[in-house]
Structures are given as structure tokens and as C-alpha cells.
């Protein structure tokens, strides 16, 4: 529940005039918003509103047609629209995918250790120290394992650490993907519909996990979600998209009562929405 004032302090991630065109189709149109650290920012909107396109622009999978994406971290300021996807991940923008993308043939633990590739690669001196198993690499590897163990305990998957990731049930795979993203030690965590396909109990657990990540790690969480119980319950700020345009931006209470949001979700008849909550 921060204010988005344009003070001297830059927000963690600032999106300005982001536009993405695919031929004649404008998927995202002049979108501007900011995401802060220690806050959960949700992007919601009806199907096809351009939410995932925004994510793909932020994480470098698409090059935006127009716009500036500024990431300000203690290490420096980066303009994401100029960077390649894997470099964006290296400076601390982690993401999960709408359809879970795990390394299914590898074990759960290997998924988390593979996520710490760059750190370990440097420690292994591009494999030379690793081949001869020097102490320097051994230490780095056991540190990486400890970080993986920490996140496995957090998401409750420690018991299946040595199982192939593909053999887990769907809900576990979703949590594992979040744990894997956290293993790159991000400053921004982008979650693309993390609650899709989860049952109410799993969804409630996910809420707790996301709040804990925000409060304990102090990072910014960016969330695309359809499940309103997740969005309304935990978001500090909600950005509503419709046809690629921002139609509302505010706290959950503000968005809940915004006539434009109600119109987008429930149709043109404003008066019928007594509750106002688009759920």
C-alpha cells in the first residue's frame, strides 16, 4: 500500500509507455506502472488483455515495440528493454511460466542447483576448478545445496528432493517452479498465474508462501492471476488491463469499486454489480 509518487527514490521496477505490437495487433498499449520492493503487485484483466505479454517484455522474451523498463537495484540501474533474456535473469528478474516449465527428467534438487548456474560456474572457474574438484568449488556446491534445501523446506518438497521433477503432482510442480525461481536470488519475482489448477487448500498455502517471500526476502513480487481470492487477499497494488490498456491502478479496495473494472469484468451494466467485487 505504497503511493506511486514520482519522488527522488526510483521504484524497483518502473514500466513506462510500454507498447507491444504484433503486426496489426496491439497487445499492450501505452502501459505505465511501477512495482516496489517488499510489495506484491498484481496484474489482472480478462483473457487476452495482454498480461503475459507484459511479463514477456519485462523478462526479455519479447523486445517491446516502444517503452522503457527500468530496474533499479542496489547494484545499479538497468534498462531491461535493451537486454537479452538470460542477462535480465542474471541481474535478478526471476519468472515462472503459465504452463509449468521444469527440467522434468532431472531431480527436484538438480532443478534448484541448475538455477544457481552462474554462481557455481564462476566458482568452478568455468569447470577447470570443478574438474579437479578443488575445495573452492566443493564449498560453492555445498552452499548451493544448502540454499536449495532451504527452499525445498519452505515449499514442503524436501521429502521428494531426489525424485525426478516430472513425477511430482501438478501442485507440487508449481511450488517447485517458484522455489527454483527463488534460487537465483532475485530482486523481482514474476509469477504467471501461480494458482492456476490449484485446489482451494493449495491456493491458500500459496498465498502464505507469497506473503512470506515478500516479507522475509524483501523482494518485489509481480503477479498475474485469475484467482481473485489470491489477488484480493495479498496484493498491495493491483493493475487492471483490458485490451492492452491500463484501466485501473490502485489498492484492492480501490480497484474493487472502480466502475471501469466492473464494466470490464461483468459487462456494460454497471448497476447490476452490487457487490462490486469481480469474483
Amino acid at each position: 500500500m505504497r503511493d506511486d509518487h514520482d519522488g527522488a527514490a526510483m521504484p524497483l521496477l518502473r514500466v513506462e509507455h510500454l507498447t507491444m505490437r504484433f503486426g496489426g495487433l496491439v497487445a499492450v498499449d501505452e502501459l505505465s506502472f511501477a512495482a516496489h520492493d517488499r510489495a506484491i503487485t498484481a496484474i489482472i484483466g480478462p483473457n487476452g488483455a495482454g498480461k503475459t505479454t507484459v511479463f514477456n517484455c519485462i523478462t526479455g522474451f519479447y523486445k517491446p515495440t516502444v517503452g522503457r523498463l527500468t530496474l533499479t537495484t542496489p547494484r545499479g540501474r538497468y534498462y531491461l528493454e535493451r537486454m537479452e533474456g538470460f542477462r535480465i535473469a542474471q541481474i535478478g528478474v526471476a519468472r515462472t511460466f503459465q504452463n509449468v516449465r521444469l527440467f522434468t527428467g532431472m531431480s527436484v534438487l538438480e532443478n534448484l542447483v541448475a538455477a544457481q548456474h552462474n554462481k557455481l560456474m564462476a566458482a568452478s572457474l568455468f569447470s577447470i576448478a570443478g574438474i579437479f574438484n578443488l575445495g573452492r568449488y566443493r564449498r560453492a556446491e555445498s552452499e548451493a545445496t544448502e540454499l536449495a534445501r532451504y527452499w525445498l523446506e519452505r515449499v514442503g518438497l524436501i521429502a521428494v528432493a531426489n525424485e525426478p521433477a516430472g513425477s511430482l503432482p501438478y501442485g507440487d510442480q508449481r511450488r517447485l517452479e517458484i522455489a527454483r525461481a527463488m534460487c537465483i536470488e532475485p530482486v523481482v519475482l514474476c509469477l504467471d498465474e501461480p494458482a492456476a489448477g490449484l485446489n482451494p487448500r493449495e491456493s491458500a498455502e500459496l498465498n502464505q508462501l507469497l506473503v512470506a517471500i515478500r516479507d522475509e526476502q524483501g523482494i518485489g513480487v509481480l503477479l498475474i492471476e485469475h484467482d481473485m481470492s489470491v489477488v484480493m487477499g495479498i496484493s498491495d497494488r493491483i493493475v487492471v488491463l483490458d485490451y492492452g490498456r491500463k484501466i485501473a491502478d490502485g489498492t484492492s479496495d480501490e480497484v474493487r469499486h472502480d466502475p471501469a473494472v466492473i464494466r470490464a469484468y461483468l459487462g456494460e451494466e454497471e448497476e447490476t454489480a452490487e457487490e462490486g467485487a469481480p469474483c
Partner: protein
Amino acid sequence: MAVEALAAPRSADLPAALKEALLAGLVALGLALFMVGLQTVPEGGTLTIHTRFAAVGMVVVLVFFGRFGLALLHQGMAWPAAIGGGGFALLTIVALLGDHRALLPFPSVVVDWIVALFAAIIALRAALSMIHVQAPVADRDSLMDRIGASVQRASIWLGPVAIVIAVALPFMPFADRRFVDLAILVMTYVMLGWGLNIVVGLAGLLDLGYVAFYAVGAYSYALIALNFGFSFWVCLPVAGALAASAGVMLGFPVLRLRGDYLAIVTLGFGEMVRVILINWYKLTNGPDGLSSIPRPSFFGFPFTRRPEEGVTAFHQLFDIPYSSMHRIIFLYYLILAMAMVTNLFTIRIRKLPLGRAWEALREDEIACRSLGINPTNTKLTAFGIGAMFAGFAGSFFATRQGFISPESFTFIESAIILSIVVLGGMGSQIGVVIAAILLIGTPEWFRDLAQFRMLAFGAGMVAIMIWRPRGLLAHREPTIRLADAPIAQPPP
């Protein structure tokens, strides 16, 4: 008891079994009439056609009875199938062992044994179905998976045992020159298989032009040794480096390609290298090849009977009588050591971040990018390192043969190396060894069959693709384990 159980589910249908067998016989007749029945023989400068209808008849009768036995089995009449198949197998084997081969009508000992084997299989299946132990397909698959898993786990002691056997091999009483030569050939392919395993098995990049790097290594060694007179041990790293740069050169244009498209481009690259070798006559001597490539020496001591003045030969160094086997055995140990280096490297790199990134890239490239893994560098190192080992193997090939020409680096070589990797089970080190012995060793054992030995190769491939489509030993052990992870419990 067993008979009652069998009789219950299905009533025996003799006419149906006969019909099936007749149909199979007819198909066999159609196939064999021209392929077996007609033979072209050069006679006085022209080709004449000889007929072999007796052989066709033999084929048809064998297929008829074989199919009849199987059909009887399916119809639930296991007894006649067991007795017929068993009796035939027994007679054949007795005739073979009792040195009465002349009684058998088949043209070769290998065919005798194959016929006996098939009869025995029919009899065995009949016997098994009588005592009700025939496993359903799903059970059989999981059984093979478990075998794969236990072999993989046993590799801790299986590996050293295999190494001891490999080291002792040249001194076995049966190891004559031909045998050690074959062992060298098999070991070369084991090394190539292990090298390609890095590219295909770990990084998941389907490479159909692997032989190109083998060729680059062989020609690098040959040209440097012939033109500058450097020794094998100097040329080896140079050849490896040149092959690795060829790998990176191939890697750049194909970075964006995956799967089939990548396979097509690598196939083209393999052919390009071969065509360059043929046409760059000034450098490579074209189709005539390069000859009198220096043989390897024992770290400076040559394997010659009468060395030049002032040079000590290997047999003089150790004061033993000269034998031409010395060099063969040395070559064997050389390729064994080179293959073991490849193997140890692969085992180690799998446990390093680079190896994990290769495997992650194989599983999901997009997820890799989202985790900050640089896909370009990761792919290029896979291509480069895989090619480097092919270059080492190529140098060895050149020094062993003493003569190389583009003929040795055709597409079929790439196909064989890839078959070894796929057949062994992608990413399985021991699988590659077994597959190399099967694919390279077996055609040699089937030399009796002359040009038909490739048929045995094909039959083996088909059989394995039916029963083990993921390869003989397709089982993956995690590269890192959480030692004190609690035992997994079924979710409530």
C-alpha cells in the same frame, strides 16, 4: 493342471492357425522368389542369372513352420508348438555339435545357429506359456527399467571390473592379432560414442555430422605430422583444438535450430567437410588420400625391427625379442587410455554446473533462459567439447591406419556412432560400451554371412527398437543427492 487352465479360455482353432501359417509362407515366397531365388553370377565377362529355387523352398518351409508354431501358441495349443520347436532345435543343435553339419541343408553355420535359435525360442515361449509365467508387456518394460537402474547403480563396481578386463584383454590366450585389432576398432567407436554422448545425450543436440570432426582430427594429425614432422603427442592436442574450433564453427549458425532442423544442418556440415577433403587436392591429396602417415612410437622409441642408426627400438629398450604384436598392443592401450579420459571427463562434467546446464538445456531451453543460463555459450561448449574428443579419436585413427582418405568419413560412420549412443540409452556410459560391442563387434562375428552381415545389424536394431525404444540402459541417476532427505511418503 496347466493343460486344463490353458484349455479353458479359448478353444483351439487348428484351421485358423494353418491359414495364418500359409499366409506367412505365401508372403515369404513373394519376398524370397527374386531376392533369394535369383542370383547374378559373372561368367566370362558377362552376368548370367542362376536360379536357386531349392533355397526359396527352404525359406518358405521354414517360415511356414515357424509361423505355424507361433500361431498354435496363440491358439492355446502350446504342446505341439513346444514339441515341434524343441525337437527341431534339438536335432539342429545335435547335428551341429556332433559335427554332422553336412546333414543340414543350410548354406552356412551361422544360418544353422539362427534357425536353431528361432526354433528354440518358439519352444521356450510355448513351455513358458504352459507354466504361466509369461509376463505382460508393461511388467516386462518395468523389469527392463529396473535392470537398467541396477546396472547404473552397479556401475560403481562394474566400471572398474570392465576396466580390469579391458586392461587384461591383450594378454588373454585367445587374443590373437585379429582379436586385438577388433578390440581397437570397438574401443575407437566407444570413444566416439562417449564423445557424441556429450552432444546428443547430455545437451540434447541431435548431431548427424559427427564424423566431420573425426575427419578434421585425422587430417590435422596427418598433415601436421607429414609436413612438419611433429610426433603424435604434439599433434594430438593440436588436432583436438582444431576439431573443437570446427565444432564451434558449426555451432554458431545452428544456435537457433532445434530437433529435425538441427539434424539436417549437421548432416549437411558432415557432407561439406567430406566434399572439401575430396576437392581441396593441393592440401588433402583429394580422393587419393594421405599415405605413409607416421606410426606412433613408444614415447620416442619406434616399433621397428631394425631401427636406424642411433635410434633405440621398443624391443631393444626392454630387451625382448621383436614382435609385430607390440605395436598393436600399444595402440590398444593408447585408445583405451584416450577413451577412459573421455569417460572420466564426461562423468565429472555431468556433476559440474556446465554439465547440469547442458542437461537443463536438453530439457527446456526457455526455462534455462529464465534462470540466467546463457544458451549460446552452453551450446557452443557442448559442440566444441564433443568435437574435441572426436578430433582426438581421429588422430588415433590416422596414426593407426597410416593411410586416410575421404572414404573413411562418410555419413554411414556418423549414423553408426549415433546408433551406438541411441542404442545404448541416451546419456548412459556403460550403454555406449555395450552398444559399441554389439554394433561393431557383431558384424565382424557375422563375417560368414558376407554382405548379408549388415542384415544381422539391421535385425538387431529393429529388435531393440521394438523392445527397448529408449535404448538398452536408459536410466538416469541424479548428479547430486540430498544425503539426509527424509524417505518419501505417499501424500495423505
